């Protein structure tokens, strides 16, 4: 008698590898990089070894250089992000729910959205001076648009049935906004936050390279001019960590605010 066992046909779609695989992969890339540098195939001026970058980073932390630059950069990005996010959130919520605001504001928002915001920096410097305000403003501008657009479309897409439920229970405007519209749009809003985080980092570095004497962007440009590549790369690593931290923060916040999200 022949027998044929039913196979697990979903296996290849279900396969999960443990988290340490990621670490191994990272280690392999770094090891390869290190090996290339040690072999002398490329000049350390163009590509310093990971260990050299690490050593430079440790030095720069020890002499306070990273700390100073990071503090300046963090202040700018935090202030710019907070201002831009608040304005974007309010604009998106109001434009998404009020037909008047929609008609009045959205064409303007749509017209300004495609402008690469860094192009406005010279104008802002002219208006606001070379100090912190012009840099914070440019970051706020960059953050405002993706958050406003995403909030707007999240709000626009609210299930009309849920609005009818709220109205049938005689919920007021504010209650409906707070308890129906906002929660419904929250996943969309968070997607906007993620896009905005990337934009903020980009504008931060660009603005600091153009018009700052302190900050991670200025630091990277400075060591680029001096051709001290390992310190330049150390600055880039700090930026990468900053981006990761931002991402992690948003993930934690999202998990706490959106517990109903399906796995």
């Amino acid at each position: 008698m022949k027998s044929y066992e039913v196979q697990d046909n979903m296996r290849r779609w279900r396969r999960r590898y443990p988290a340490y695989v990621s670490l191994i992969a990272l280690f392999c890339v770094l090891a390869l990089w290190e090996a290339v540098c040690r072999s002398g195939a490329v000049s350390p001026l163009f590509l310093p070894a990971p260990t050299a970058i690490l050593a430079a980073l440790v030095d720069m932390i020890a002499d306070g250089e990273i700390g100073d630059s990071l503090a300046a950069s963090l202040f700018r990005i935090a202030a710019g992000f907070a201002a831009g996010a608040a304005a974007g959130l309010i604009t998106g919520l109001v434009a998404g729910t009020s037909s008047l605001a929609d008609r009045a504001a959205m064409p303007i928002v749509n017209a300004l959205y495609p402008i690469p915001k860094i192009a406005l920096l010279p104008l802002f410097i002219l208006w606001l001076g070379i100090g912190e305000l012009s840099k914070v403003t440019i970051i706020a501008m960059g953050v405002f648009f993706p958050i406003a657009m995403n909030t707007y479309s999240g709000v626009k897409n609210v299930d009309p049935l849920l609005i009818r439920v709220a109205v049938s229970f005689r919920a007021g405007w504010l209650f409906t906004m707070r308890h129906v519209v906002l929660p419904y749009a929250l996943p969309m809003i968070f997607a906007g936050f993620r896009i905005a985080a990337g934009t903020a980092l980009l504008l931060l570095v660009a603005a600091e390279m153009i018009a700052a004497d302190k900050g991670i962007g200025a630091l990277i440009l400075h060591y680029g001019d001096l051709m001290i590549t390992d310190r330049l790369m150390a600055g880039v690593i700090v930026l990468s960590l900053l981006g990761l931290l931002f991402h992690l923060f948003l993930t934690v916040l999202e998990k706490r605010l959106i517990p109903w999200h399906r796995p």
Partner: protein
Amino acid sequence: MQLVIDHICQSFPAGGGRVLPVLEDISLTLREEEFVALVGPSGCGKSTLLNLCAGLLPPVSGSIRFTGDDLTAELRVSIVFQETGLMPWRNVYDNIAFGLEAGHLLPPAERDERIRHYIRLTGLSGFEKAYPHQLSGGMRQRVGIARALAVRPDLLLMDEPFSALDAQTRLLMQEELVSLWEKTRLTTLYVTHNIREAVMLADRVVLLSRRPGRVKDILEIRIPRAERALPEHSAEIAGLESRIWSHISRDAREAMTEVQP
């Protein structure tokens, strides 16, 4: 308190400047503490009529009003929606609390007792913390029913509240609804596809024609609700059912084969 539906006509724009007539000259009065079932083929405008009664849609012509000597300004109308309409970010408990919160109905301290009462009544004990996507279709409908009842409405509108239930649970829920209704005696407009359900629950059954919906017939059922399952009434019940069925079946067949506009 009575609900007077007075010469209601309703239509929707169908694109290309045409209109789709949905309800045609509906007149109907729900008496105080009366349970009226609305039966008609799919698409004849039953949900539309419920939305009109709840003030969620302005009628194209005609009017709907409450009349009565002891009318208070704040009449409460609850709907059990066909598609449940639960908030995905609220668990069972908080979904049932929604109407109380939205209408600022009870001091928060007294809400808990009220909510727990309706959780027990709808058999959802133990699922207070579950989110809608973790519930079965029938449980979701029960949450919708509990949410509607928790505000103690003056008028209850139910749009096929048991359609996602299996036959056995449906029967249990019907019995549940009968005993609940005997206790609270809410004025109720109840939409159903299920003829047996209409006959078991209602004081009157209103038959709507296929779209555009018109009142074709109204049947009074005089047997006391609690006795309708007894064998001595089975002949009369069967007679009513076959009367409704003969009304519905021709319409339903025509509606199924009708070319859509």
